[in-house]
């Protein structure tokens, strides 16, 4: 379906199309839109934080509000911006890269998105309903269990719902990659982005249930009077920390691995070289993921777990630096001897290397237990995780967007604007966060509403705030570029970068069935193989025939909406009996939809061979 055809339809039709779509490419648009929206919200919160800290003892926002903002900034950026944006890219690209027509569970794919969106909306409704959560994105009990008002309840319900969506998405990608690769696309021929999507999904599958349980316990304590974290009744607040970080540390890798994958693809494309040490890259990814599950307690070095536990977790954490280092050197080796094109996608990727290396360096430094007694919960740690999450994930998302924008929308993002945005953001980023390493060591703990006069922290904070404004300008230019491209953007051919992988072998944007004929894969970088062997086109693995496609459905939207309503019921049943009405109505909607989905057969439909031949013209 071309853009022209879409534009002819009315707004209502387009809206309905998106509400009911199960097409992974449209779901990707939804994820990017939803994630982009929350990214702006989280960014505004970040700006308020930096304005508050521009000078000592500032009173731009009040203490309570400041805690709400810092909590929402972290929660929003991690759960509602970074993850959905990555899931958007995965949805847009991974099925194309492995030569699949769709994902394994198109219906669940849509459900995953709507759950994320409604979860995010619940969380943000807290702003309008008496105050946002204020116990930090880590929500340590008993601060979170005793936090007055309903803020933390919104945190619990919002994350529970959107977390369920993510879990569903993870399972979906796993099955897609295992069962639906095109003929010849063996595991060791998969592009790195598909590989990291796969490994990330494994992490999602095994990490998110720990959060689910943690949130349940928190919810039971806050809303139903249980005593998990109530010390007076024998509860133990450290259980929350364990559960949270058993989820939380793999979560960090959930955020960074997809970025690793797409940087690998980008470096190899723009250096015009095959990825150096492909096998090592794959195994490094697996190793990082595996170790990622054994290091959670390095977030808890100061909890008092004892020297044995601290030492073990420190060494396990340092071990992760080895596979990460392998990756960095393999990227450099990929570039070495290449013919490097530098455009905005590549700029973000190149900016990533020094930035992320710095983040990795400080990562090893904070793993050193006794040194961490000083770093822990200070601005040093704030600097460290922004270096890896912004320098890795956000740079990755922006690189990926510039790289795949032509594939997703058939238009190329403006190069000039892209480069300006990069340089401003890059400068602003280092200005904001580099100095924070020193602020931390100079005695500034994190999550501080104010820092006091005469403590030597003024200059550093001022510089940091100036940097934050530059970052904001960079982001604004990027969003302007998006709008500009949508209106006036240059249309590009299907393969504008001289690509190497399968997604560049389809039209831009791809037809909703992706490939008219499933391609036959004859090696790593399948399109490049065909190009170097003279054909320049994929060989089909099958004759032209009918294509089986899934039906769209509004049920995922309604189900998520049901949970959204039920969420309010759960929160307010503490104060009002009437709140049981939304609770039961919402759960009823959810279960009813599940029943309908289970009872009503849905066999999908077929696009006939004749239609396909007609569309070719």
């Amino acid at each position: 379906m071309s853009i022209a055809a879409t534009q002819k339809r009315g707004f209502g039709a387009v809206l309905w199309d998106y509400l009911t779509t199960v097409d992974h490419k449209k779901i990707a648009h939804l994820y990017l839109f939803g994630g982009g929206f929350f990214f702006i919200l989280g960014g505004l919160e970040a700006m308020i934080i930096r304005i508050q800290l521009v000078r000592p003892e500032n009173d731009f926002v009040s203490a309570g509000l400041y805690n709400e903002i810092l909590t929402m900034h972290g929660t929003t950026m991690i759960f509602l911006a970074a993850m959905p944006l990555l899931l958007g890219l995965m949805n847009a690209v991974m099925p194309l890269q492995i030569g699949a027509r769709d994902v394994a569970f198109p219906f669940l794919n849509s459900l995953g998105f709507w759950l994320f969106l409604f979860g995010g909306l619940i969380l943000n409704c807290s702003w309008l309903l008496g105050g946002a959560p204020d116990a930090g994105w880590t929500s340590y009990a008993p601060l979170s269990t005793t936090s007055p008002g309903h803020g933390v309840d919104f945190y619990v319900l919002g994350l529970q719902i959107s977390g369920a969506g993510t879990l569903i998405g993870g399972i979906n990608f796993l099955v897609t990659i295992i069962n639906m690769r095109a003929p010849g696309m063996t595991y060791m021929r998969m592009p790195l982005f598909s590989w990291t999507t796969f490994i990330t999904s494994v992490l999602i599958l095994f990490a998110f249930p720990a959060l689910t349980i943690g949130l349940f316990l928190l919810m039971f304590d806050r809303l139903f009077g249980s005593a998990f974290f109530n010390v007076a009744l024998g509860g133990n607040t450290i259980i929350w920390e364990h559960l949270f970080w058993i989820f939380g540390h793999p979560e960090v890798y959930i955020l960074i691995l997809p970025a690793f994958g797409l940087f690998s693809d980008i470096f190899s494309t723009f250096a015009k070289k095959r990825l150096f040490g492909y096998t090592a890259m794959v195994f490094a990814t697996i190793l990082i993921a595996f170790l990622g599950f054994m290091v959670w307690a390095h977030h808890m070095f100061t909890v008092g777990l004892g020297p044995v536990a601290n030492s073990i977790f420190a060494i396990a954490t340092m071990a992760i630096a080895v596979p990460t280092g392998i990756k960095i050197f393999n990227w450099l080796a990929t570039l070495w001897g290449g013919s490097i094109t530098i455009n905005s996608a590549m700029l973000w990727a190149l900016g990533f290397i020094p930035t992320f290396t710095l983040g990795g360096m400080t990562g090893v430094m904070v793993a050193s237990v006794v040194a961490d007694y000083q770093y822990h919960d200070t601005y040093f740690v704030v600097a460290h995780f922004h270096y890896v999450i912004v320098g890795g994930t956000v740079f990755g998302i922006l690189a990926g967007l510039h790289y795949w924008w032509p594939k997703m929308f058939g238009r190329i993002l403006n190069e000039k604007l892209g480069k300006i945005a990069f340089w401003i953001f890059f400068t602003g980023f280092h200005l904001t966060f580099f100095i924070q390493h020193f602020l931390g060591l100079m005695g500034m703990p994190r999550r501080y509403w104010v820092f006091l006069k005469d403590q030597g922290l003024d200059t550093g904070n001022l510089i940091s705030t100036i940097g934050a404004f530059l970052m904001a300008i960079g982001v604004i230019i990027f969003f302007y570029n998006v709008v500009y491209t949508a209106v006036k953007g240059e249309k590009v051919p299907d393969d504008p970068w001289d690509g190497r992988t399968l997604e560049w072998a389809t039209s831009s944007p791809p037809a909703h069935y992706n490939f008219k004929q499933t391609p036959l894969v004859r090696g790593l970088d399948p399109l490049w193989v065909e190009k170097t062997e003279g054909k320049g086109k994929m060989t089909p693995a099958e004759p032209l025939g009918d294509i089986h496609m899934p039906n769209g459905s509004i049920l995922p939207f309604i189900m998520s909406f049901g949970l959204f309503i039920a969420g309010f019921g759960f929160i307010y049943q503490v104060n009002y009996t009437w709140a049981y009405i939304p609770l039961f109505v919402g759960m009823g909607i959810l279960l009813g939809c599940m029943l309908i989905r289970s009872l009503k057969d849905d066999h999908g439909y077929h696009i006939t061979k004749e239609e396909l031949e007609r569309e070719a013209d």
Partner: protein
Amino acid sequence: MSHDHSLNPETMPHEPEKATLEGKNKFLGFWFFLGGETVLFACLFGTYLALRNSTAGGPTTNDLFGLELVFIMTILLLTSSLTSVYAMYHMKNNNFKKMQLWLGVTAVLGFAFLGCELYEFNHYIHEYEFTFRSSAFGSAFYTLVGFHGGHVTFGLLWLLALMIRNAKRGLNLYNAPKFYVFSLYWHFIDVVWVFIFTVVYLMGKVG
């Protein structure tokens, strides 16, 4: 494509649950789901183990648990797992009626188990005033065992929906994976119970 047509012995593939791509996806996806569920229960077990002695002056595991009832419950659930295996055996032989029969037995055993569990909870609450709110141990106990009970309840509703929906049309390649996936779920619940029996009840009595 003959999705809606019931299978007969000639068209019956060896593994009807994995004969279509959709079936294969469902089968694999469900295994992954159970992987996630394993982590979920592992976290609940961990929490329970950390809190099982935090009774805050209330009844302890030793005061509460009686192994007789739990033993009966274990037998009920283990047997229901066996009967669901019979059902799957008949599915593979394309004997729909017998499959339904054994699934029916599975459901009955499941409901019996659930009845026992409700009785047990009721007993603790009224005889010992041991509730979800009385201590951290109470919260952990009811949450762990209750999560399992909730899974049983959901499984029974699922099973009934499947049996009723397909009662008239028999087995086909579209619904065979659904039955099969249910049986996987049911085994999983059974395995979790074995752990609950050991960790909660046996260790509570002995340890």
